[in-house]
């Protein structure tokens, strides 16, 4: 039988690299078939994308062996640009997929490339935008769209070209959980409506499992180690999945933690609902008791902030005590980041005052303030200053008068904790994504500030490095530091935070413990663009079920 996609003995090596990115990859895909392609970061998933859409070997600096045929035509035999009529790709980063300024121009760009006559374009643009429910944004400026809308626009651009195969290369890695859900729902709807083959490349399985039944798994060496139904691999090769850094759905994780030998674990909340199993309920730590006479660590008094005529924060008063782990949540654009910048003293509030240890921030000397308050940015690269990993960590010691050999000992200890000791002479920019994140954590471990603010530190990172980050953070918290973290991840809040603050439209909408927040009614949470974490959803379902059982028997 003639398969639509046929990959045979594909091996690929980049120039300057010793090892292959992909080795002896073989698979076929029938037309209209959907498959999940899973692998940890660095397993050559994106490289495979470029092989499938015909950019490699033409643009490759390196060597490629083997055959990639689509619809019976080998990649080397096509003219540049020809493949885009059959294969479309949505990439990971929503910011860098566009070259035009408005939505309609961007969709038109692809149509222009393949020479669609101008009189047909209008109709095809409307059609494509209709598919992703963005027709009312046709003339909008791309810069004003949210991340989720940008990814849907990228999808519309591809759909306008009517490809037979759609490749999604970690399309939701840079989206918040709500936008992720929406994007996956859009794909699901389109899959029912249109006829296209689908390859979803991911390292996290959440949400995708009911779109495709088949999974192809790559290991770190770029070899396929499994090709078959997704349920079987979770059952049979769960440990190998974890070792390779592929993340089974959170629902499955929770259920299997309690029932490790279960035959057919649920992959989604819906599946769990049909067959609830006991799950552990996390007993959240009681909020840190505010000692009456103790001075609060950080106190904001009626602060407001505006840029030009645009009010961003209105009259916010908050008190933070020593030892708290505070999560700040809320919709995009509600002022979370602005609030954190004010609290860190990076910006001055337009009105009101912020006190650290009872002394107004304005009166702090900058160098003293930086020893008290740390801030972790989304992109670790932004914070790197020096040219080697060692210097980067040692930089934090320059204020402290420590003897040379003592300093060396301390730096090496921190590097060891973060698993970077072997890389101490590397340039920070040459590290992998996870290593960069760990290095940025290392720098703040050695700085040893008592208050640390974090602006979505887990955003756009892979799940493995997120886990490492959270481990380091909770260690720091146990050592007595106060953490204030902006996040969209409800499960993180549930697992780590002692207190959660919801910001909506520049005001504090809620300030309570996570456990109390999950009791807030569903409609209200939706308005704040929050949802219950998986663990809470599961235990609620289970309790309801038990109640039902006990009342009926």
């Amino acid at each position: 039988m003639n398969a639509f996609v046929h990959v045979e003995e594909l091996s690929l090596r980049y120039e300057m690299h010793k090892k292959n990115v992909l080795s002896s990859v073989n698979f076929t895909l029938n037309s209209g078939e959907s498959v999940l392609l899973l692998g940890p970061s660095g397993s050559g998933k994106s490289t495979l994308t470029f092989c499938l859409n015909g950019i490699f070997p033409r643009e490759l600096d390196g060597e490629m062996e083997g055959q990639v045929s689509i619809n019976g035509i080998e990649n080397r035999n096509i003219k540049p640009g020809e493949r885009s009529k059959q294969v479309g790709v949505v990439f990971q980063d929503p910011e860098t997929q566009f070259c035009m300024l408005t939505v309609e121009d961007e969709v038109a760009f692809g149509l222009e490339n393949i020479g669609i006559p101008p009189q047909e374009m209008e109709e095809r643009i409307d059609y494509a935008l209709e598919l992703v429910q963005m027709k009312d944004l046709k003339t909008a400026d791309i810069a004003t769209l949210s991340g989720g809308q940008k990814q849907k626009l990228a999808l519309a651009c591809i759909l306008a070209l009517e490809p037979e195969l759609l490749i999604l290369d970690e399309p939701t890695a840079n989206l918040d959980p709500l936008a992720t859900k929406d994007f996956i729902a859009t794909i699901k709807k389109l899959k029912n409506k249109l006829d296209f083959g689908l390859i979803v490349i991911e390292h996290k399985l959440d949400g995708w499992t009911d779109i495709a039944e088949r999974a192809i798994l790559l290991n770190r060496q770029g070899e396929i180690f499994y090709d078959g139904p997704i349920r079987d691999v979770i059952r049979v090769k769960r440990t190998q999945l974890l070792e390779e850094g592929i993340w089974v759905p959170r629902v499955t994780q929770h259920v299997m933690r309690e029932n490790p030998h279960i035959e057919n674990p649920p992959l989604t909340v819906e599946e769990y609902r049909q067959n609830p199993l006991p799950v552990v309920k996390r007993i959240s730590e009681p909020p840190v008791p505010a000692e009456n006479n103790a001075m609060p660590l950080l106190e904001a008094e009626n602060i407001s902030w505006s840029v030009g005529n645009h009010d961003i924060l209105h009259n916010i008063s908050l008190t933070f005590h020593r030892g708290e782990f505070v999560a700040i949540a809320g919709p995009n654009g509600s002022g979370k980041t602005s609030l954190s910048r004010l609290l860190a003293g990076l910006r001055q509030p337009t009105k009101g005052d912020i006190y650290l240890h009872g002394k107004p921030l304005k009166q702090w000397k900058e160098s003293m303030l930086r020893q008290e308050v740390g801030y972790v940015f989304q992109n670790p690269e932004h914070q790197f200053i020096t040219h080697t990993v060692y210097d980067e960590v040692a930089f934090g010691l320059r204020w402290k008068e420590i003897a040379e050999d003592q300093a060396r000992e301390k730096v090496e200890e921190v590097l060891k904790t973060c698993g970077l000791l072997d890389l101490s002479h590397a340039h920070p920019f040459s590290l992998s994504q996870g290593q960069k994140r760990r290095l940025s954590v290392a720098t703040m471990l050695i700085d040893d500030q008592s208050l640390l603010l974090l602006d979505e530190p887990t955003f756009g990172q892979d799940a493995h490095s997120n886990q490492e980050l959270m481990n380091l953070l909770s260690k720091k918290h146990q050592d007595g530091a106060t953490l204030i973290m902006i996040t969209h991840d409800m499960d993180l809040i549930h697992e780590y935070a002692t207190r959660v603050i919801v910001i909506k439209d520049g005001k504090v909408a809620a300030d309570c413990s996570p456990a109390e927040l999950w009791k807030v009614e569903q409609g209200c949470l939706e308005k704040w663009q929050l949802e219950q974490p998986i663990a809470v959803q599961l235990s609620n379902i289970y309790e309801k079920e038990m109640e039902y059982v006990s009342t009926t028997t």
Partner: protein
Amino acid sequence: MFLQRLNPSVKAVTIIVFIIFLAMIFEPVTPLLFLMWTIFVTFIFGKVDVKKYLLYFAPFIIFALGMFWTSIVFADTPNHPDDAIRFFGIDFPKESVLTALALTLRILNVAALSLLFVFTTNTVHFILSMMQQLKLPPKIAYGVLAGYRFLPMLKDELKLIHDAHRIRGVNQAKTVKEKWQNYKRYVIPLLASAIRKAERTAMAMESKGFTGDKHRSFYRQFKIQKQDFIFPVLMLFGFMFSYLIAIQIG
């Protein structure tokens, strides 16, 4: 608003032609009258915001006045001592005043013509039109367009890096030299992310079938119509008129 609807390429070419014409005029009357004409056209046919226009025009005026002053102060000694113009209590030779005036007005004229273009043209439309009328290769045109999108992103990024470095305690620069060193420190993260972004954008464009090939269709079509010739004719009329009056005056 007639100027905004004009084909951008026609507008650009016309303006370049008249800048060349002006470079060949050495007396002050033609540029003065033509300057008035250009500004008249800008406001009548372009409906440009006066405040904004003045704001952008001001630096050119300062520059032109400075030019005027230096060229008369450092002028050669006059050939005909009687032929002098007196102001601020100082005698200046007439011919150098006239040359200085011509130079000044030429600067203002180039400024006025450029502003006419800038205030009435959409950058994206200009690039698209250059591709369609002036045979600009799509590779360059879309490169510039993608870069145009990048500018605000780079600005935001620079601000972020500035904050991030401040947090680590390196941005307490007081002297100019220290500030310069800080900026040097921004270069690597900024370039690293810009290069990565550019590469991703290039890959995304290519996977949408972009090859840089000249044979492509256009969603926004720019054509040269009859009305587009009104602008060069209008400007030529103004120029000839100014020139003739200048000859009359002598």
